[in-house]
């Protein structure tokens, strides 16, 4: 066994024995923070600024023409690590205005008690229909309230700009497309 090392305790100096320098340096820190600008926010009255790329609550969005972009391909359901997403696929009636898209979710549920805000659903979506937007606070009194259904997801998501209008182009090609022979 190693021999114990005895640490010699130095005697306090006179200034130290009065405690005055310690009190003054402590007060200096206190006064500094009293006059400094605040780091905290008066939440919920004040809201933080959301930086770009923030991953808030996942939502479903519509394109500027009001078409629901999700086609229920279920890739987000597949990729979701905590299995928070549950989609019931459905068919769009052929005579509907977006009948050429053929497929849309009948029901779309995201369980916010499971969601880990990883953003993989947004990354994987081939239709750019699901986005983690700025809302960060989800509360509810029951477990059922914490499951966002399709209507709620579209309400949260709203409309985002679209760069492709893939399906509109498709319909356009269908209407005036290549002449036969």
């Amino acid at each position: 066994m190693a021999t114990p090392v005895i640490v010699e305790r130095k005697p306090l100096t006179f200034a130290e024995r009065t405690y005055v320098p310690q009190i003054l340096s402590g007060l200096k820190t206190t006064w500094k923070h009293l006059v400094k600008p605040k780091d905290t926010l008066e939440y919920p009255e004040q809201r933080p600024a959301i930086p770009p790329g923030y991953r808030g609550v996942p939502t479903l969005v519509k394109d500027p023409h009001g078409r629901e972009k999700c086609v229920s391909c279920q890739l987000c359901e597949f990729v979701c690590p905590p299995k928070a997403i549950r989609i019931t696929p459905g068919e769009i009636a052929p005579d509907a205005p977006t009948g050429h898209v053929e497929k849309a979710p009948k029901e779309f549920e995201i369980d916010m008690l499971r969601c880990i805000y990883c953003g993989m659903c947004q990354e994987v979506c081939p239709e750019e229909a699901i986005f983690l937007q700025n809302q960060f606070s989800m509360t509810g009194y029951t477990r059922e309230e914490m499951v966002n259904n399709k209507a709620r997801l579209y309400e949260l998501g709203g409309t985002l700009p679209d760069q492709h209008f893939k399906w509109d182009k498709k319909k356009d090609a269908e209407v005036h497309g290549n002449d036969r022979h």
Partner: protein
Amino acid sequence: MIAPPKPDLVTVNVDGKEIAVPKGTNAIEAARLVGVDVPYYCYHPKLSVVGNCRMCLIEMGMPAVDPATKAPIMDPATGKQKINWIPRPQIGCATNATPGLHIRTQSPQIKDCREGVMEFLLINHPLDCPICDQAGECKLQEQSTGYGRGYSRFIEQKNVKPKRTQLGPRVMLDDERCILCSRCIRFCKEIAKDDVLGFIDRGSYSTLTCYPGKALTNNYSLNTVDICPVGALTSTDFRFKMRVWFLKQTNSIDTESSVGANTVVWSREGVIYRITPRRNDEVNDTWMPDSGRELYKSVRAADRLGAVRVNGAASALDLAILAAVDLLKAAAGAVAVVGSGRSSVEEQFLTQRLAATLQASATLVGRVGEGDKLLISADRNPNVRGALVTGLIRELPATKLSALGAAIDAGKVRAVVSVGEDLAAAGLSAAQLAKVAIVYLGTHDNATAAAAKVVIPTLTVFEKSGTFVNQQFRLQKFLKCVPAVAGAHDDLVVLTRLIAALGAAAAPAELHALWAVLAAEVPALKAITFANLPETGLLLDATPYAGLPFVEGETLHYKPAAPAAAAAT
């Protein structure tokens, strides 16, 4: 049995590897044997070769011989015979193995060819993958990833074709996705013998369609959906229901007839979404009837039994077993057991034990329909031969239980145990049902369940594992696909408990343990265990039953040994 003649083996060279294959094997199959993947769309092992997709291009060469003397020309560099490579690529599907055939599948020329073919195929193919049912099992997806260029140079407008063409009651065509491989056309012509599909128009405007005034209505139409390499043909039943990558595949058997087509059941979280055929070259090749694909709907049917009932009141299994034993003991000596040709071999074995314990006669209910000479035979029970093998019955069942009805009328039978058979449908009248105490083990509600004193809900074929013996006396196993519905009890558990409660030696209710008993007690099943039963089934010795007048006519891979019953009588 006469052994098939040994096929002529020829040695071919695939990418430098020598392999002996039967003469006439095509280059795709030969390459598959050495583990080399040759991509293809239009080729199908069970259909004729047309070679119209051009995806399976390979380089082909033959050993060089002097044209005049036929002496081999040697390559001085290697000391081996020189190989004359054909300068242009050949299609692998139509290149048959001949002695000394050399093929190259990985050369830069072939890589170029595949990229070119993929690019042409993708020209008019829509960007539909997110809404396409084939996504995840699409050859075009897989091979554009594996052999494609990786980016598109196409800036023109794609052709727009109809997206929702109903070819038949069960098949929907998306013309845009079709790559014109003609597999569906060949299937209808060659296998289903119902020539209804064809191409019209030319070039990029070629379109698959039905002949005027015809529709794809035959009972094998959904096989075209299975063999469609892309999402052009989709099943109206499965369309947009679920993506295939979520589905769990379980091997099963088609129960609609004694053909016993091998199937795969696709389920997710206890819900079955579709049934597709499983390749078994001895039974069903790669096909199955459409009617067998809808059988999964019985699992969650509205009339599914969900509660044990004793005298019409909900009860528990323990009480029901006791009540059944009381009924059967009260009628001792006057009990009849009705087994089922739809039960598994294991259940029939236990049914036979139950009948022996009760000293009762056991009968089956025959189901005879019309065979379609392909994959539905005349015997619509999947497992009559299992009952013969296990000794439940000695002769083939009649379609009506008139003998049992007469015995009931005469008062000789006072209690009936029905293992999964609807006695009313089998010819017993309501008055006859009312005269006897019925113990009914079954899956769905019917007149027998309504008349029964004890009703114990049991499992459908999708909720249990077991075996069937098909018309070839091939023992084939099916596996549990989905959990049982609430309230249903395992047939094996119910039967073993019933036997035990009647005072006989208990058999194990667990399948693998039960198979040890089966192997020990049934001579035909000696040395077989459930675990070592091959996926493609095991042929049992059919000679003890050769004299029986089986009702089946000829079907795919089956020729009746004895003249059919109808012809004999």
